[in-house]
């Protein structure tokens, strides 16, 4: 049997997903035994023109990590889609927009102003910002366009499978690769992770489903036994997909939602508003004045950034309103 052809690509990402591939340790040897890697910018000296030269559907499986931030990312998404039999959105950024997606509370003009003009460490007397084209004596130079809005991979092209996580755990990657080799992948469009919520695999104990107050993680020393929400730390495990083995919680950090919402949830942030506000301050709620309720809710700093930490681009509203 011919070896399978794999490709890896990174768009707007931190590089953590690339490391995650190597985190499967010596099992990587089984992978290269059964598959050739034909394109992998971080590790191989392959060029975009090499990919363009491939026949359509030449690549068997392409693992695409990172969000769509620039026109270069979008072009590569379309190109790799055309050249791949199976396209996998790899990691939270490709699946939901991820941390780069939080930039949807801003836009190109604001970001350029800050990064190229306003920061105290910037020296830019001409106030230049990146241009799409520049005519140099040697010829015309071009740069990709920086979009106002960050998108997830499936918002620009057809995606076959989603492998969420920041980054996906070695166990999840290994299971996915095994499914590819054995031909046991589920139906197209599936997320290669369990359907239940993280609470199902969380080792902590729920006692009363009430939150007396909200504190930030650094203000609380978790006791290691009781549900973090009940200890006043916002944990998103209640509507975040399981499959990570509750790693953050085992390290006394709350879930921040990198596995994305469970299948029933369309908008993770809205559902968290509902869930958190319902169980926060239940004790004595009948005596609470409007001012006290506002003070209670004000304990939640930056609800948008907290509740949509990884999923703003795929939320119902997708981004902040741009006033131009």
């Amino acid at each position, binding site marked *: 049997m011919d070896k399978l052809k794999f490709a890896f690509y990174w768009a707007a990402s931190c590089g953590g997903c690339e490391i995650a591939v190597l985190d499967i340790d010596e099992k990587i040897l089984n992978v290269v035994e059964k598959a050739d890697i034909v394109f992998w910018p971080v590790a191989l000296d392959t060029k975009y023109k090499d990919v363009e030269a491939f026949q359509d559907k030449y690549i068997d499986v392409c693992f695409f990590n990172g969000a769509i931030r620039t026109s270069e990312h979008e072009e590569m998404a379309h190109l790799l889609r055309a050249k791949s039999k199976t396209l996998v959105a790899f990691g939270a950024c490709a699946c939901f927009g991820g941390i780069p997606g939080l930039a949807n509370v801003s836009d190109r003009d604001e970001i350029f102003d800050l990064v190229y003009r306003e920061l105290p460490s910037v020296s830019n007397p001409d106030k230049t910002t990146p241009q799409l084209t520049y005519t140099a004596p040697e010829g015309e130079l071009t740069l990709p*366009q920086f979009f106002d809005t960050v998108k997830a991979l499936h918002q620009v092209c057809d995606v076959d499978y989603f492998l969420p996580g920041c980054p996906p755990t070695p166990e999840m990657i290994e299971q996915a690769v095994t499914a590819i080799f054995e031909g046991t992948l589920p139906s197209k469009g599936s997320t290669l992770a369990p359907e239940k919520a993280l609470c199902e695999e969380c080792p902590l104990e729920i006692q009363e489903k009430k939150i007396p107050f909200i504190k930030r993680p650094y203000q609380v020393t978790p006791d290691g036994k009781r549900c973090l929400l009940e200890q006043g730390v916002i944990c998103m495990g209640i509507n975040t997909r399981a499959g990570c083995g509750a790693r953050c919680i085992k390290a006394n950090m709350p879930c921040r939602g990198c596995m994305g919402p469970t299948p029933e949830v369309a908008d993770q942030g*809205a559902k968290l508003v509902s869930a958190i506000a319902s169980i926060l*301050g239940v004790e004595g709620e*009948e005596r609470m004045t409007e001012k006290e309720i506002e003070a*209670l809710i004000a304990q939640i700093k930056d609800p*948008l950034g907290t509740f949509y930490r990884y999923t703003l681009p795929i939320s*119902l509203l997708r981004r902040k309103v*741009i006033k131009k």
Partner: protein
Amino acid sequence: MYEPKIIGFLCNWCSYAAADLAGTSRIQYPSNMRAIRVMCSSRVDPEHVLRAFVNGADGVLIAGCHPGDCHYISGNYKTERKYVLLREMLEQFGIDPRRLRLEWCSSAEGGKFAQVVTEMTEELKTLGPIELGAGD
């Protein structure tokens, strides 16, 4: 003048009855609100509100029983906390918080209900059509 669209989530036990009373009492109020009857104001998920905005509503009204009068004892306390948190999040999204309104109308308050809808319609007329997202 712009005619805004308002989605009104009215609780079965108080506010829907208030709207009914406004009707049978022949109290005049603008026809900009489309009513959706829910069993309790706390049934209204923030996701419903966002969906209304995304589908073209200029404003969303949530109306329920007065605090202490909830048919399910404590539903409207939860509604109020959800509303306060959602309002804060809408501001972060750049949506004017006046587009979301929470009111208590008992089944005897047909007049108040008509007044709330009138006020909200006037306010949304001055705010104009809702703008979401945009950009490339």
